[in-house]
């Protein structure tokens, strides 16, 4: 039976997200974000971390193109948002973000590309697990949560189109 991370990767890919397995180190994360965002226009915006150790993200602000303390006007024009995940869901390949820390909502919504950092130990089996008081300290029942499954999409204009109002591309860095 595949482990949760493998199932997650398969189902996230099925949902049109891209999954990169990434070593859990500041340099590896920085390198992955840099590679993913190399052709993006409009700058990179980072959300504030809550669940990952702060030092893991310490190298990101120094990356070229990163906008520190962005104004809303810059947010509207940025090309990449980097968001930390509260959890992942294996059976659906979803990442789940928890609103609260600055820019978590906007980095996962406004920019054409959303990079989500997901710690592999925060992957649960099914969506309903996050409604269990014993799962991830019961935070799933208290927070403003958004399950994100692939990039935004629409079939309203005929065929399925990836990239509707929200991000056109969802890249998940699975931190092992």
């Amino acid at each position, binding site marked *: 039976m595949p482990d949760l991370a493998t199932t997650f990767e398969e189902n996230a890919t099925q949902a049109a997200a891209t999954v990169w397995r990434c070593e859990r180190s500041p340099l590896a994360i920085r390198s992955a974000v840099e590679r993913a965002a190399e052709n993006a226009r409009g700058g990179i915006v980072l959300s504030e971390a809550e669940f990952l150790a702060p030092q893991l993200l310490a190298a990101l602000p120094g990356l070229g193109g990163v906008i520190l303390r962005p104004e*809303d006007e810059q947010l*509207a024009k940025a090309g990449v948002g980097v968001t930390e995940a509260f959890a992942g869901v294996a059976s659906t390949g979803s990442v789940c973000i928890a609103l609260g820390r600055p820019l978590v909502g906007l980095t996962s919504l406004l920019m054409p590309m959303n990079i989500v950092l997901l710690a592999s130990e925060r992957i649960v089996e099914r*969506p309903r697990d996050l409604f269990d008081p014993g799962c991830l300290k019961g935070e799933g029942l208290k927070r403003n949560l958004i399950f994100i499954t692939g990039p935004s999409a629409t079939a309203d204009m005929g065929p399925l189109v990836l990239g509707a*109002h929200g991000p056109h591309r969802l890249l998940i860095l699975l931190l092992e």
Partner: protein
Amino acid sequence: MADPHLKPAAVEVPRDLANKSDKARLLRAIRMALEIESPAVRRNTQTFNRGRYLATAAIPDYDALKDQARRIKDKAIASLPELVQTLKNAIRSRGGHVFVASTAADACRYILDVCHWRAAKMVVKGKTITSEEIHLNHVLEADGIEVVETDLAEFILQVANEQPSHFIAPALHYSRERITALFKRKFKTDLPLDSGEALTRFTRERLRAKFLYADIGITGANLIAADTGTLMFVESEGNIRMASFLPPVHIAISGVEKIIPARSEMAPFLELLAASATGQSLAAYTSFLSPPLSDPAFALPGKPIKPREFHLVLIDNGRMRMREDPVFRETLNCIRCGACLNSCANFQTVGGHAFGGETYSGGIGGSWEAGTGKLENARFSELCTGCSRCVNQCPVRIDIPWLNENLADRLNRTVERTPLRNALGSVTGASMEDRSAPASKIFFGNYHYFAKWGARLKSIAHSIGVAKLAGLTSSSDGGGHAKPLRLAMERWVGLDRRRTLPQFANQTLVHAARKQAVGAGRPRGSKVVLFADVFTNYGLAQRGLATLEVLRALGADVVVSEAVPEGRAALSQGMIATAKNHARRATAELERYVSEGRDIVVVEPSSLAMFRRDLRYLLESKERFERFRARAFDPVEYVVKLLEKSSRKPKDVFDVSRSPVGQKLFFHAHCQQKTIGSAEPTEALLREVGFDVLTTNVECCGMAGSFGYKTEFYDLSMAVGADLFTQIIQQERSGGKRALIASGTSCTEQLQGGFARSVLHPIELLAAILRR
């Protein structure tokens, strides 16, 4: 004044046909949909439907999850007034506002007041069908406020000035080509807009600026938890996230029935909703928000920074009255996933502009339209044929056909009795309450009466050597030169002259079986009563005789009941009082056999479904229903049971090489047979015997009992049947001709009409290949 039926469909405007309180508009809307919208509707609904089957199959505890969801909804509806109070407290404790609107006008007035207080010039809206119900856009726009629909489907409808045709995909009646033409015409652009990507990009760019500068965002909500004031939003595009997150003021509009007791109880709906709606494991975004949010609202330069504000507008608009109605209370369980729409053969063919009203569509739509408006607005629910394919697809187990049968019953009673209806009702024995129903309904609802006399006349004609008697045993000659009797039937009871009438048996099942039983002796195996349903007894008696032959060959002790209606025909016409009478007669007839410990075998699937499903509403107690439900079987299902009991292998009993129709079959299961789970055993047994069996994935053949016989629905019925015909033709083109096998009488008629070939019941085939 011009006859409305003669108006060319191509110039019909869906908005003009939205209110179908009169029948003529319903028929015009069907014509418009068949001519214009059908290809896109068919493609999109069938894609959702296929996806739903796959997605729900991937949920390991799907049925348990449905039960859990249903329990939560039942509990919520039972305590709705208390939950509203709990919810108010939860949201107000965080600084939000809650307004409970008794009427649509109250809701609009409150929302308009909020817009005035905040000096709003522009609002962006996420998809909210409830706002369509209250006609919110009209009210805001009349006050000079710019309303921007941001769901791409709703945007198309706003540009086209059309009402939604589906709960979750409101513009699914539009093909890409039609959207391109619409946008080029309305926006006067030279851009090619010749792909989904181009159209999406064009629309997204127009709408992004609106999001960033909007004063107010308006959304609906999929569910609301009373304990925490948490709202659940399901979407794919991200526009609901934007509408609820970017502007400083968020107004959520929701029917009161969306409230459930606790946030922890949202879990089963999370997985059920997306799978049932679009066939996804989850939609791109499922949000659980407890507003007002703490994040600052978005403010571009020149736009004042305002504190966040949240208003929840809970809408009654008839729902609390529905809660008090013993039948329509059921509707409040609906979570608007659209599974019932996508699995409905009629909806798949015409969509919600024909099979729908001003706001709500499909099988469940009639109850919503009647509950939130007037009963007459639900007239389109006549397009529910009662095929029951939606029943197992509903994630909260709403019995939608029963709702529509009740709507039909109440609509039947809104009209005055006429002498013709009175006479017809009196002659056929229809209940007094049902004698104001249209003549066609009294005719079809009491078909047993006409079948009995038809069979008698046929028998007399047969015995005296007259081949055809007064046109009763034949139909149109195919060239439109119908016999006078057929013309009269079309005129007075709406029976379409293009249909071949079911043939009456030379000898009824009951009569033929009695002759057989003489001196036959009684075996000592399983005890069975073969219920002489109306269609088998008076029409396809050979199917009943084949059942007798096979079951007796397997050692069963089989007797045949008297022929009595069990209520299916009357129920399908919304004649519930008559259906109850029929159900009591049938169960009284069967009671003595059941008391002897006999199982009941029923050949006609729609009659069997009465015993397995519908009698629960028509008999006096659940215990009495259960007494018959647990003993009722399809013939082939019972053959499987006997084989298992005797540990005999199918090939020991049946010899496929004796098949009179070859070994390649195309088996079309009856819609109700699929719902009650008696199709799979048939398919499996035919394969085990050695047949090469192909099946169809259409939900219904389009005939659906009496539906396809009616002149007013003939074209729709044939359009639905086209899917089945196409599948058979395609299979035969690639793999050669196959024998057509069908269990239902009406499916048989539809297939015979489409292919002019004989169609066998599986039990007839099994009787023919018995090892002797």
